[in-house]
């Protein structure tokens, strides 16, 4: 396995061969009946001020990566290194100082806010938990956070049901920023929102990054949104990262057949897009309970050959900074297709 972050001194977060397996418990005697290989050996790094996008289809394990990274889920194996310190074995007590620096924004702005707490209480709760700022100072800081995320401070007394979806997501963002974290995991933060509201939240996340020097792990299924927000993008398929590189390279020269198919499946809101060449994958994503042997993607891959069915391809650096796990490149086979999109014609 690789560790993409070569410049250790600069790297904020590094993940090495992270695994998260869930046992399937069945029957009255709670017998283990199988394992869900949700995250099965994932490695990446995130630099300060950088956004790493993590994209993939439902069930590929992208949200589990985010949660395991924050130790909201205990990793099954692998290492999570924050500024050089391995936190994968840290207990609750040891994690506390890290929790202040690593926060999360959730997908569902309806389910992630306690309906019995006012918006102000929700945003000030991190201060209470970590015993930071009291009384008037805490109120001032909450008010400042409200303003920063584009909510009027008078709304502090309102309850979640009084807000729209976009406003609720702003409350979730204010809560995540309360303790001035360095790193925020955003798990599908805009996918429940209407497009005109999506743009507001995306812009806010980008402004906050510029202003506060935040690093993001941006988890989403919408490749266009991910590419817009991210510096680099990692593509996941069935518990593994199949490709990582900067967003432009990923789009122009995808090195994994899955990335190629994913790029060509994303509808582009332009009339000229309808004449582009597309790869349409057959079949469904296999179950993570019983993933295919060898390369997980071989059951849907148009380029699959014998080796793909037996041997797991390693994620390796094919060109500088561009990692892909596909036997085609090991075998010296030139990637067969031209870039899948573009404005070749109108």
């Amino acid at each position: 396995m690789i560790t993409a972050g070569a410049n250790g001194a600069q790297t904020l977060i590094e993940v090495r061969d992270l695994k998260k397996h869930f046992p399937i418990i069945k029957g009255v005697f709670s017998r283990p009946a199988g394992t869900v290989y949700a995250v099965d050996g994932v490695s990446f790094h995130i630099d300060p001020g950088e956004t790493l996008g993590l994209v993939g289809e439902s069930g590929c394990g992208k949200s589990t990566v985010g949660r395991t990274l924050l130790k909201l889920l205990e990793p099954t194996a692998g290492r999570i290194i924050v500024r050089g310190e391995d936190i994968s074995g840290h207990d609750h007590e040891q994690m506390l100082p890290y929790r202040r620096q690593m926060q999360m924004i959730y997908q569902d702005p309806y389910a992630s806010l306690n309906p019995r707490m006012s918006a102000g209480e929700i945003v000030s709760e991190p201060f209470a938990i970590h015993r930071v700022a009291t009384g008037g100072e805490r109120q001032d800081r909450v008010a400042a956070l409200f303003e920063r995320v584009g909510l009027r401070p008078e709304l502090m007394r309102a309850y979640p049901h009084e807000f729209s979806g976009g406003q609720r997501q702003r409350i979730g963002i204010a809560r995540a920023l309360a303790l001035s974290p360095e790193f925020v995991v955003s798990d599908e933060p805009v996918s429940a929102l209407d497009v005109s509201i999506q743009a507001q939240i995306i812009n806010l996340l980008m402004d906050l990054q510029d202003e506060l020097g935040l690093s993001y792990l941006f988890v989403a299924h919408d490749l266009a949104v991910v590419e817009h927000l991210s510096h680099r993008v990692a593509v996941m398929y069935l518990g593994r990262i199949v490709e990582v590189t900067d967003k432009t390279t990923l789009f122009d020269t995808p090195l994994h057949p899955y990335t190629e198919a994913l790029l060509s499946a994303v509808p582009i809101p332009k009339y000229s897009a309808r004449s582009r060449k597309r790869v349409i994958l057959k079949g469904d994503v296999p179950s993570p309970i019983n993933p295919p042997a060898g390369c997980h993607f071989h059951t849907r891959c148009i380029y699959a050959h014998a080796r793909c069915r037996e041997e797991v391809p390693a994620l390796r650096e094919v060109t500088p900074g561009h990692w892909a796990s596909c036997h085609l490149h090991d075998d010296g086979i030139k990637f067969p297709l031209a870039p899948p999109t573009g404005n070749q014609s109108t």
Partner: protein
Amino acid sequence: MSQGVLFGRTAEEPETAPGAAVLEIDDLRTHFFTQAGVVRAVDGVSYAVRAGETLGVVGESGCGKSVTALSVLRLVADPPGRIVGGKIRFGGANLLDLSENEMEGIRGNEISMIFQEPMTSLNPLLTVGRQISEAITVHQGVSARGAMNKAVEMLRRVSIPEPERRVHAYPHQLSGGMRQRVMIAMALSCNPKVLIADEPTTALDVTIQAQILELMRELQETFGTAIILITHDMGVVAENADRVVVMYAGRKVEEASARTLFEQPGHPYTRGLLDSIPKLDVVAHEDARRIRLNEIEGMVPSLHNLPKGCTFAPRCEFATDQCRAAYPPLLQHRPGHVIACWHADKLLASPA
């Protein structure tokens, strides 16, 4: 379904596709009578769809796009909803004048609908074969055995592997993409003239979405079905629709051919919407100092309490006193290009 397919329509499409309208919605008004007041969910919407054509209907949640479609099939729950005005012309009749019995002969037979969430629209207690054949026996007077054979045939048509076996499967045994294929098989089993697809791929992953849209295109070519494709996804519309209707707060604000709508949008809302969506091919080439997306200020107004004048005016950068005073008429500004905006001519003259 072949892989690596090159598809697309010819660029030289006429501004208005030829052929007569199969279904025509004329000044439809569907209101909901709630304790908080009257919600004008659909407030004077007109559009038509022709044979073999895909009409895209786009808009954000609550704009009335789904209620319009449900009104066509007279499926709006009454109370609280009621169709209070307009006509729905189909096969020489106004569907709003038909008896419930006559409507049953239309639903699922001449006009079918597929919904966003296939799991909630399929009966979990019946095999998919039973569900498909039910429509066929009811509408076509075919024997049970004949209908089952037709069901297998339909499953094959929608590219479900091993249709003879799957016909005995229950919905929970199928994946989301397969369930949507079953829905499509069911909707097309009686060879309808019009298929209303309400967010047919929204619950699906993007690679599965591509499969389903491709399938709908293939079936449309085979059967010549008119499709009303309702979606919030501008990308899906751009790549699949021939003509597009844009809705906002219960009304149609713009209609044009897909090409015109995406290349020369005339309504400020359409423009704002298009500019607010990240476009994969563009964003991939932005540098690290990323470009901000266009924001449409504020949010969709509550249908309980619509602003006076143009409902988009409070969010519109071009709004003037005229906009705040009166709702603009829907006017044809260019052949086949209809816009409801006082400033449409000025906007059309300036590049998007």
